[in-house]
């Protein structure tokens, strides 16, 4: 049975699009048929992060309005044949997204794919509420930073009230994806710890993505994180996240950056 997953956060710039592309690629690598849908109408970027910006002809709005058939707008990934992208429109504004049309498109995608990953825009407006509307599972992307945690809390409230599942009185599976985490800074008391964020938001942890140069490098190149460097720390975390989404039990690891002997000694000295 197909699952609809929304990648959401409230706050912008925390890594929704990067994570949607990375989770999509990780699930597709495991043999699942995945489509990643960009709901950020007017400010699309998923195509760019996935390296398909020059292949966009039709988009979500065209399909929602019935101008073209779904298959005409879907873009098959060149590296992974089980991965597809449905881009957002860059020229229209978000009011062009109509609830009925979105429901129909999501319904069609459910029939074609194992996973429908909806990349939500920032904010709590129409684009964001429609992206979460049909979700079975929500991945709440959060940075260990006060404004991001506050916005995530707000989004969790919306997931529990504004989604189709919530309105039917059913539970929507919510998971925390903590991104840009620096274990050393957290240990030194300079950054919220994983446990702090978990205690505040009170939803289960999907994975912790460490702050890493690999993430920017991957988006520079237009390659989802797991496909760009198969062994980097963020890749390992995204792969673990995908395995957990598929129902596997994977031991949680809290990534720590490798440090030189000298900085370790200095670090100890400062704390002593």
């Amino acid at each position, binding site marked *: 049975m197909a699952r609809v997953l929304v990648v959401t956060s409230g706050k912008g710039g925390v890594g929704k699009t990067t994570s949607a592309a990375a989770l999509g690629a990780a699930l597709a690598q495991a043999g699942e048929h995945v489509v990643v849908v960009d709901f950020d109408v007017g400010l699309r970027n998923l195509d760019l992060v996935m390296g398909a910006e020059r292949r966009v002809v039709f988009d979500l709005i065209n399909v929602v309005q019935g101008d073209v058939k779904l298959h005409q707008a879907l873009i098959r990934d060149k590296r992974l044949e089980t991965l597809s992208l449905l881009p957002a429109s860059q020229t229209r504004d978000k009011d062009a997204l109509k609830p009925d049309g979105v429901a129909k498109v999501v319904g069609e995608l459910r029939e074609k794919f194992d996973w429908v990953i909806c990349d939500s825009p920032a904010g709590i407006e129409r684009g964001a509420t429609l992206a979460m509307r049909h979700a079975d599972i929500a991945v709440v992307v959060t940075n260990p*930073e*006060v404004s991001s*945690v*506050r916005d995530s*809390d*707000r989004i*969790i*409230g919306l997931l*529990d*009230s504004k989604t189709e599942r919530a309105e039917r009185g059913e539970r929507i599976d919510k998971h925390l994806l903590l991104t840009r985490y620096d274990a050393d800074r*957290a240990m*030194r*008391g*300079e*950054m*919220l*710890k994983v446990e*702090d964020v978990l205690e*505040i938001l*009170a939803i289960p942890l999907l994975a912790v993505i460490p702050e890493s140069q690999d993430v920017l490098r991957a988006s520079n190149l237009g390659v989802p994180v797991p496909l760009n460097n198969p062994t980097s720390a963020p890749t390992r975390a995204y792969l673990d996240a995908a395995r957990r989404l598929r129902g596997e039990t994977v031991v949680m690891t809290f990534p720590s950056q490798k440090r030189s002997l000298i900085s370790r000694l200095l670090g100890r000295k*400062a*704390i002593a």
Partner: protein
Amino acid sequence: MKLFSFFRRRRSAPVARERLQVLLSHERGNGGDSELLAVLRDEILRVISKHLTVEDDKVQVKLERGQAVSLLEIDIEVPGQLDEKIRRRAHPGGPPLLPAPST
């Protein structure tokens, strides 16, 4: 000493944690699960005002989410008349407590 103050200056995460906890426990009551809370607040206000005069903004409904249990906190501020009614109830000679006399 210098090393100590240097160390202390950098521990900002506990401050962030505490600020968030205070802020969110407040915000969750004012819009976190807004629709349910608004309905609850409305109905509670209706029931209470059958018997007491309560100002609309003196009814606060808050929901604190937890993993195992959540806490629903209902705060109703009533003017001095409640004391009066309780006193009357303690002295059966006074007028009956319910229903509230219509004015």
